């Protein structure tokens, strides 16, 4: 069996940072090297993306959005991940990583046009190194591996982050992508946001074993961590990305969290889960938890908390206004405009017929 890659402890720079239970150790927390401003900014971003999430939920209820998929409870992962990466490192999200996109600098009003029925994702992924929100579960994971293989072929110093939920790990694409990554030693960090629910199906019915430990079978290390601790996420992603950057290949992080809201606004979680489960996770809510830690460290006071809330309210109001005044693209362009770079004549004729029919109506 000499051909089989054995994952050894020396090859795992993430594990020493964590307790066996997946908690970031006090030592590791103390050596992150983040300035007080940077530490406060993580908090600010979590509050901002949560408040935007709530606003999107309201906008959906008011009929301004067709659908919304809340990410409440997963903010530590969204913020910690982006903070751990360089802006040139690509992120390949699933559909729930709206907050990650915000942290990457994409205008939330622009992203919300997707849920307003005006676009399928309007931003240029190359500008933000942030791929489109992908809806078919796990199908984005091979895309991330392709990008990482490309980084290796071009001798780039960027790495790729591929994120997905626990449900995605049941899919064939997930397995194929993990296997490719191992074989090609691609510089990719796999980040499973294990929020314990795939719509109504709980983790226990989704998978019988450990997700993190599956990495061994693909020839690289994996770890399960506390995904509701923003600094734990940041530390794990940073160490795994540094390892990938120096050419040591992929890493799998299973970040344990909880989907506090419904799957989407079309879902009704009261049909399949109890309040007590939610209450148990409310205690671990990443935002108050981190706020208390900052307060305990003397890094944030009431005045700065109030200032953050004011800034966030202003930002959210501006987002709402930008969304409501977002131009509605002309139908011909919206439907036909981006399908082909070199559209066939017959396609252009169909567009022309459609546009003339609009004019004559």
């Amino acid at each position: 069996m000499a051909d089989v890659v054995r994952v050894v402890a020396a090859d795992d720079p993430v594990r020493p940072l964590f307790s066996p239970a997946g908690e970031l150790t006090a030592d590791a927390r103390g050596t992150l090297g983040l300035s007080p401003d940077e530490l406060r900014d993580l908090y600010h971003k979590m509050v901002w993306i949560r408040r935007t999430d709530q606003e999107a939920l309201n906008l959906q209820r008011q009929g301004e959005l067709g659908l919304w998929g809340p990410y409440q409870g997963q903010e530590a992962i969204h913020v910690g991940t982006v903070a751990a990466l360089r802006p040139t490192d690509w992120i390949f999200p699933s559909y729930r990583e709206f907050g990650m996109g915000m942290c990457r600098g994409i205008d939330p009003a622009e992203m919300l046009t997707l849920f307003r029925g005006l676009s399928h994702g309007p931003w240029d992924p190359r500008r933000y190194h942030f791929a489109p929100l992908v809806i078919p579960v796990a199908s984005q994971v091979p895309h991330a591996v392709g990008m990482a293989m490309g980084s290796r072929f071009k001798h780039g110093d960027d790495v790729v982050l591929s994120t997905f939920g626990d449900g995605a790990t049941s899919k064939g694409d997930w397995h194929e992508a993990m296997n490719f990554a191992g074989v090609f030693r691609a510089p990719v960090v796999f980040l499973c946001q294990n929020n314990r629910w795939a719509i109504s199906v709980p983790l226990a019915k989704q998978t019988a074993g450990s997700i993190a430990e599956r990495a061994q079978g693909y020839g690289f290390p994996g770890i399960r961590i506390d995904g509701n601790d923003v600094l734990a996420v940041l530390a794990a992603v940073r160490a795994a990305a540094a390892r990938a950057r120096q050419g040591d290949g992929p890493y799998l992080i299973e970040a344990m969290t909880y989907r506090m809201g419904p799957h989407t606004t079309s879902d009704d979680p009261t049909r399949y889960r109890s309040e007590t489960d939610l209450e148990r996770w409310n205690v671990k809510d990443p935002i108050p938890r981190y706020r208390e830690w900052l307060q305990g460290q003397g890094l944030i006071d009431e005045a700065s908390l109030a200032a953050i809330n004011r800034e966030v309210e202003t930002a959210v109001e501006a987002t709402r206004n930008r969304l409501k005044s977002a131009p509605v693209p002309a139908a011909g362009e919206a439907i036909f405009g981006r399908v082909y770079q070199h559209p066939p004549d017959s396609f252009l004729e169909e567009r022309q017929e459609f546009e003339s029919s609009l004019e004559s109506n």
Partner: protein
Amino acid sequence: MEPVTMAKAINLSLRDALAGDDDVLVFGEDVGTLGGVFRITDGLQKAFGSDRVFDTPLAESAIIGICIGLALRGFKPVPEIQFDGFIYPAFDQIVSHVAKYRNRTGVSMPITIRVPFGGRIGAVEHHSESPEAYFTHTAGLKVVAPSTPGDAYALLQSAIADPDPVIFFEPKARYYLKEEIDTAKEVPIGQARVARGGSGVTVIAYGPTVGIALDAAKAAEKENISLEVIDLRSLSPLDMPTILASLQKTHRAIVVHEAPVFGGFGGEIVARIADDGFDLLEAPIARIGGMDTPYPPARYEKLYLPDVDRILEAADLALAYG
């Protein structure tokens, strides 16, 4: 230039594309060291290195899925799906992403997916299929199927240079057909060719059935029946002007493909003729194809596939109509 087989012509086309553009990558199952099960990629890894021509794990969905990330980074991936019947695991990646990614993001996907297709090779199940209609039905893709070495060379150049994704179907029964090729000749996507001029009935074919159609035209000539054979080369987009120009002469048409007739690509051709050339027709259009069954065991494939006799019979009926 010495006559070359279609297999060699495709090999030369890949070689020229790799040499002409550092962003072209060739990969798939067994395409590296072995040079492909049909030897289409023979010698390419040796010439261009294993970062540009490489074997992948046996996983069609990921073979196509990685193309998205590679294309976002500026590469021009040219993956091979080993056989027609193995493309289905990649169907989701092709339909949900390869075809739709530009529409979603505005970023072009210059991906050319090579697929040996069609029957008449005496193979076991899953090695003789004609899945083209699944892809012609998908907006965002272009679908081509050459029938000669020269067209295979040139059309592959056009496909790789095209900024949009192209499904490139190679008629494997014609891999070893030889002809002299002119590598300077261009064949743009979307242009059919008249493979043989005639005046009585137009026979519309592509890929593996072009040879059968030409054989039928030769046989018909002995009976003083003149068949014009159109080799579509490109299924999507479809060259309707060439088809309609032929119907101006013949007023009769037969469509021939190996795929089952029901829901097959021939239906689209017939419907387009009905839309744009109804007044030209003097007889119903015949569709000749595989039966509406799964591809049969090899012993029976000759009975299943279109042949010269079925084309001649349809031509007789078309000429006798009315």
